[in-house]
């Protein structure tokens, strides 16, 4: 029998070039490949699992998020919720980003223990599966695909989160005197070949919030904004921001506020 040769026009290959072999051309080539992959982003696999989790009755209280969790647009409503967070939630008396809000619903509505979720909130390199919370975040984010970021910055509490996040981004400390802005405060900067978005600009902030949740082809893992903030502080030589804390929400509010009015393309795909 004749085996077909029609196979793959686009295989997700995980690659690692020696640093010295990377050039600007390689960057441009990779960008083309990445754009092509947006059409078949493996993030969709995590969306599917997230949707199942959203609708399933789970946790000690045996309720689904679909029947209990209000992301700001009404109980169970996910369409357009992602691009309108962070926002203020009166029931929690806090401004929350999307991931933090889902965690809140899981603890308050479903009865999960926060410590259990926070124990391993991110997919490790080469872990076969992403944590439930990552799948849920990916599902909720995907339900805002092709909608404009519309964080309610006119709300004083959201504004406070935004301004505090802005001040946090400028805060220098630690052995290397770094702040977020050391790398992300000006246009056209790179660490090695990695382009660094200027998070104070609308374009740069959009890159920040567009990227996460995102599928990272290296290692084949799905990662969220909460993870991105966490790993940035590692590289900043800081201690660790607590998972789903106000500190992380503030930074996400700062970026989302700067990205307001621009189109969200749905979960990202990254090198």
């Amino acid at each position, binding site marked *: 029998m004749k085996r077909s040769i*029609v196979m793959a026009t686009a295989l997700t290959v995980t690659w690692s070039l020696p640093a010295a072999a990377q050039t600007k051309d390689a960057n441009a080539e990779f960008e083309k490949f990445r754009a092509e992959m947006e059409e078949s982003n*493996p993030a969709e696999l995590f969306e599917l699992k997230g949707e199942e989790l959203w609708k399933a009755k789970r946790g000690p209280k045996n309720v689904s998020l679909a029947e209990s969790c209000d992301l700001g647009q009404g109980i169970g409503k996910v369409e357009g919720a992602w691009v309108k967070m962070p926002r203020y939630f009166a029931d929690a008396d806090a401004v929350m980003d999307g991931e933090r809000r889902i965690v809140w619903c899981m603890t308050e509505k479903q009865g999960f223990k926060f410590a259990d979720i926070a124990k391993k909130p991110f997919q490790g390199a080469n872990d076969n599966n992403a944590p439930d919370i990552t799948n849920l975040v990916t599902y909720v984010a995907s339900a805002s695909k092709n909608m404009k970021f519309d964080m309610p910055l006119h709300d004083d509490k959201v504004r406070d989160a935004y301004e505090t996040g802005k001040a946090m981004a400028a805060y220098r400390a630690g052995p290397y005197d770094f702040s977020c802005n050391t790398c992300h405060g000006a246009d056209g900067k790179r660490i090695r070949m990695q382009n660094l978005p200027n998070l104070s600009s609308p374009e740069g902030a959009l890159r920040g919030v567009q990227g996460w949740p995102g599928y990272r082809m290296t290692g084949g893992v799905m990662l969220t904004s909460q993870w991105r903030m966490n790993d940035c502080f590692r590289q900043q030589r800081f201690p660790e921001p607590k998972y789903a804390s106000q500190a992380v929400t503030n930074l996400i509010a700062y970026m989302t506020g700067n990205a307001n009015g621009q189109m969200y393309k749905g979960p990202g795909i990254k090198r």
Partner: protein
Amino acid sequence: MADPMKIRAQMKGDVAEIRILMSHAMETGQRKDAAGNTVPAHFIQSITIDVGGKRVVDGQTGTAISRNPVFGFKMKGAKAGDKVVVNWVDNKGDKRTDEATVA
């Protein structure tokens, strides 16, 4: 039980564009875990794709393909409404079949 695939099949003119996302670890058998033990090879080794009742792909795959692989191709001779059936089997005998309809 393997996770579902995501299949997208769409007519663009007289050409059908088919893209399939598969959820699979695709372990090469070369990698070591944190404890230094080799992670056993675990990969999809055969894939079949039927469109409108006709087998269009019958292929073998190996460990050179990444985790969560994406397969995309274009074909002539399909029409809207045709059923797309994708089937894979891995080296541990785990398998998965999913369907979609050409739009």
